[in-house]
């Protein structure tokens, strides 16, 4: 039997009972179970807690927890655990059902363990979250169009800006690590799937269950303490804060599970010959970000758990009247908060490096320096958090050490930059759409980085802290840097994800709107910052009007750009031109497997003989000719499902 004749795994005929309970579960049953359990939790706690001091907070928290557990039970998160506990672990047939065999498009609405399905689900979720966060951003900018605008009440405005912040942070954390570290990264290292496919599905559906509470907080008064939810304000605010905390705690579970999964996959699932020194840069970026997330996110879980107990059962971690301190919250928050921006940024940069190498037709410049740079960023990122607290009055004597570590981080960042520029240096520049985003990143991130240097300097930060300059700075790095990386990744890997080419004509229109929109919006906000306009105000003095109008106009251009981008994505997905397996003639492994990618990814198990960047170099003959092994002839235990 030749490889071409071997039946594909996804065409396997499964028995009528394969999958067990999974057969009856999908997104609909998850929603139903979640709503029912949430309702039961609400009714029970409301009845039991009537008249107690913290009644409403307790009821809201219990209801949200009921929803989260109910949704996950309904979708199938706990099935495998219970089966394993009961001694009836899944059979091979159950695993194949779980990977989506024989379910067609319905597998996208199920607890599906196929990493490619999970990646696609993540992409859709990220788009939905950006839609929500972007709409809120437009409401903020519209409110700020004129001074003393009365369009939104201050309560609504504060709620909108807080939820905008957190929804965007959730979306950006998963925007590259979700779709691409799930869909592409395992193929890049020659693996059949992630190391823990069920945990992979769990990481996605747990995020889905985490989103409704934070959006629901609008209906119980909203929150008015920003995405940072500084205590003690957040201890006193409306029950919306409880829903925010439940969302964060649930989300951290997902990020932790996903981070462990990424790390174990790269360590244990690499194809023969795929040494750590031959890993594509994007894989390095994924594990650096995953590991950094493992370090950072639990601090947020801790901070929010303590906040929740302060609110619900009356502990006093943060309440100054009973011996607590807001500084404790601020420290825990930023121990998460600073590494988290690199969790967002590094995968985007990794994707751009792959793009730069492919479209400059050149090897990645100084591979080892690039990896060292990313590791250096990650190592320093955990030691800089208190630069967010220069002006809080906490430990003023430590200002100099924090200034040192913060400024040191520009050295590994500079190395990563050098390697990106070095990759373009003397290349044969092929200006297809993905390459556009690399150039935009080079422009934007320099501005984001340089403005960060002012903020790292304590005397200058004493002016700029808490004003619009900071807002402009981190939007330039997160939107102008990381999100541009994500947009590049979408355009680059879209043929593999969707089997079609991302429409380049429309895509370039979107690109120019986005590129110009970013400049206008955030130059306006830098201007506001220089003038001295505080962040997070919904009503400003007439002095700031020209800068704000510039920023709002820019924001509308930006919105138009992202809408065109989203439309292009949906349109290309449905009607785009069919792509070949390797439309960019790239050398990384994901382009050397058929499109659409078969279940377990490869028709022949790959054997790696060099790194994937040998542009312009003669093929190095492998020391040993690999034996082609048709998929399916290996023992089933080795299969990832």
């Amino acid at each position: 039997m030749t490889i071409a004749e071997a039946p594909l795994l996804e065409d396997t005929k499964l028995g009528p009972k394969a999958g067990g309970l999974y057969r009856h579960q999908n997104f609909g049953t998850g929603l139903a179970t979640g709503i029912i359990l949430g309702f039961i939790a609400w009714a029970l706690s409301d009845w039991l807690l009537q008249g107690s001091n913290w009644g409403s907070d307790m009821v809201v928290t219990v209801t949200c927890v009921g929803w989260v557990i109910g949704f996950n039970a309904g979708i199938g998160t706990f099935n495998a655990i219970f089966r394993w506990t009961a001694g009836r672990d899944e059979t091979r047939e159950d695993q194949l059902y779980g990977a989506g065999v024989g379910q067609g498009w319905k597998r996208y609405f199920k607890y599906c363990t196929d990493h490619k399905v999970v990646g696609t689900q993540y992409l859709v979720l990220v788009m939905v979250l950006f839609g929500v966060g972007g709409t809120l951003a437009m409401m903020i900018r519209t409110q700020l169009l004129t001074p003393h605008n009365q369009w939104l009440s201050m309560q609504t405005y504060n709620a909108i800006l807080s939820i905008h912040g957190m929804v965007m942070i959730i979306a950006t954390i998963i925007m590259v690590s979700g779709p691409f570290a799930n869909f592409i990264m395992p193929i890049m290292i020659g693996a059949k799937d992630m190391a823990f496919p069920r945990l992979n599905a769990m990481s996605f559906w747990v995020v889905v269950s985490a989103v409704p509470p934070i959006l629901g907080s609008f209906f119980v008064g909203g929150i008015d303490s920003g995405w940072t939810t500084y205590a003690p304000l957040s201890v006193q605010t409306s029950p919306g804060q409880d829903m925010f905390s439940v969302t964060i705690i649930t989300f951290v579970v997902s990020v932790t599970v996903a981070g462990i999964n990424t790390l174990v996959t790269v360590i244990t699932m690499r194809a023969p010959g795929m040494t750590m020194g031959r890993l594509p840069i994007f894989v390095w970026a994924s594990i650096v970000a995953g590991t950094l997330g493992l370090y950072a996110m639990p601090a947020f879980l801790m901070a929010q758990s303590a906040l929740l107990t302060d609110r619900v059962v009356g502990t006093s971690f943060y309440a100054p009247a009973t011996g607590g301190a807001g500084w404790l919250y601020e420290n825990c928050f930023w121990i998460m908060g600073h590494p988290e921006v690199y969790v967002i940024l590094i995968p985007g940069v990794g994707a751009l490096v792959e793009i730069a190498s492919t479209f400059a037709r050149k090897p990645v410049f100084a591979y080892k320096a690039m990896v060292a740079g990313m590791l250096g960023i990650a190592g320093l990122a955990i030691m800089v958090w208190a630069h967010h607290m220069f002006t809080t009055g906490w430990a003023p004597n430590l200002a100099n050490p924090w200034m040192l570590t913060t400024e040191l981080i520009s050295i590994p960042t500079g190395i990563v930059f050098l390697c990106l520029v070095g990759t373009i240096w003397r290349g044969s520049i092929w200006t297809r759409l993905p390459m556009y985003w690399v150039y935009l990143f080079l422009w934007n991130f320099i501005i984001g980085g340089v403005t960060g240097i002012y903020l790292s300097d304590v005397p200058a930060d004493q002016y700029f802290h808490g004003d619009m300059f900071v807002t402009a700075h981190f939007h330039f790095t997160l939107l102008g840097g990381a999100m541009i990386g994500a947009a590049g990744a979408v355009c680059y890997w879209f043929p593999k994800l969707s089997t079609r080419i991302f429409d380049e004509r429309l895509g370039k229109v979107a690109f120019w709107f986005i590129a110009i929109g970013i400049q206008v919006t955030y130059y306006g906000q830098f201007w506001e910052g220089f003038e001295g306009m505080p962040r997070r105000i919904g009503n400003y003095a007439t002095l700031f009007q020209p800068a704000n109008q510039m920023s709002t106009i820019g924001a509308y251009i930006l919105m138009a750009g992202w809408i065109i981008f989203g439309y292009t994505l949906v349109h290309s997905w449905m009607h785009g031109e069919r792509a070949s397996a390797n439309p960019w003639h790239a050398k990384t492994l994901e382009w050397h497997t058929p499109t659409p990618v078969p279940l377990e990814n490869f028709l022949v198990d790959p054997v790696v003989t060099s790194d994937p960047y040998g542009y312009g170099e003669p093929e190095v003959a492998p020391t040993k000719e690999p034996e082609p092994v048709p998929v399916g002839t290996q023992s089933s235990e080795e299969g990832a499902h």
Partner: protein
Amino acid sequence: MSTSHEDQKREEISEQIDPFFKGGPIYRRPIFKIGVIWAIFTIIGILIALLLPQHIMPTNQSHEFSDVMNTVVLFSILAAPVAAVVWAIAAYSLVAWRKRMPDYNEPPPDGAPLRGNTVAISAWLGVSVFLVIVLLVWGMTVLGSQNQAQANTIRVNVTGQQWLWNFSYPGTGVSSNVLELPENTTVIFQVTSQDVTHGFWPVELGTQIDANPGFITYIQATPDKLGRFDVRCSQLCGLYHSYMYTHGEVVTPSQFKSWLRSQGASSSSVNGFTSINKTFAEGKN
């Protein structure tokens, strides 16, 4: 990791690469053209650094604000050549190294297989380490000078509450919602809050510190120009955070004393206000 076999191949290739920095008249070499673009970007950057901040920042009313302004200008000047390197190469690559193939879907021939360049990396590393040292020494020096005890010092208590500021002048019994300060006198603000965290930010004085409930934080500023300045809240503090602002006034020392008296302070307490606080200043640090 690459095998020695691969390394050998790569060395052979790198020998074949056309010399990039040599041959031909200097103005025809790519490195010269990139240098010209770099110089243009650098000059534009430095001009922006020198001209822009003073036009869009508020009136400078204190030593601390001068520090902020100087820092912004200096850091921008230092950053301009570094940013210009990246932008110059990017711009040049789009013009000179862009390859258009007759078939859009066909990739251009491979570029030069450069796997790294020790000189470039070392030089870049050296420059960035040097710049970080400059930034750090500058920051530490300025911060150190700001924290020095001054001979001519007063103290003002600042209390934030949702959503207004209260300023009191210890010993005089004067309390106000407007921050009145004497010119050329170092003011140590003792900042706290009654409810949630606020951010005390006298904008034109170029400094700020959070007002934390249960704790007192200190910040000092030396106003050196007469006139009105803004006081804003820089930390989201709840419903009416947007409206939590007031203003202050820098006046001459004699005007300041008469203002204190007009607010009901006795003459002896007004005279004692400055002398008592000199000893406080000596006690700090």
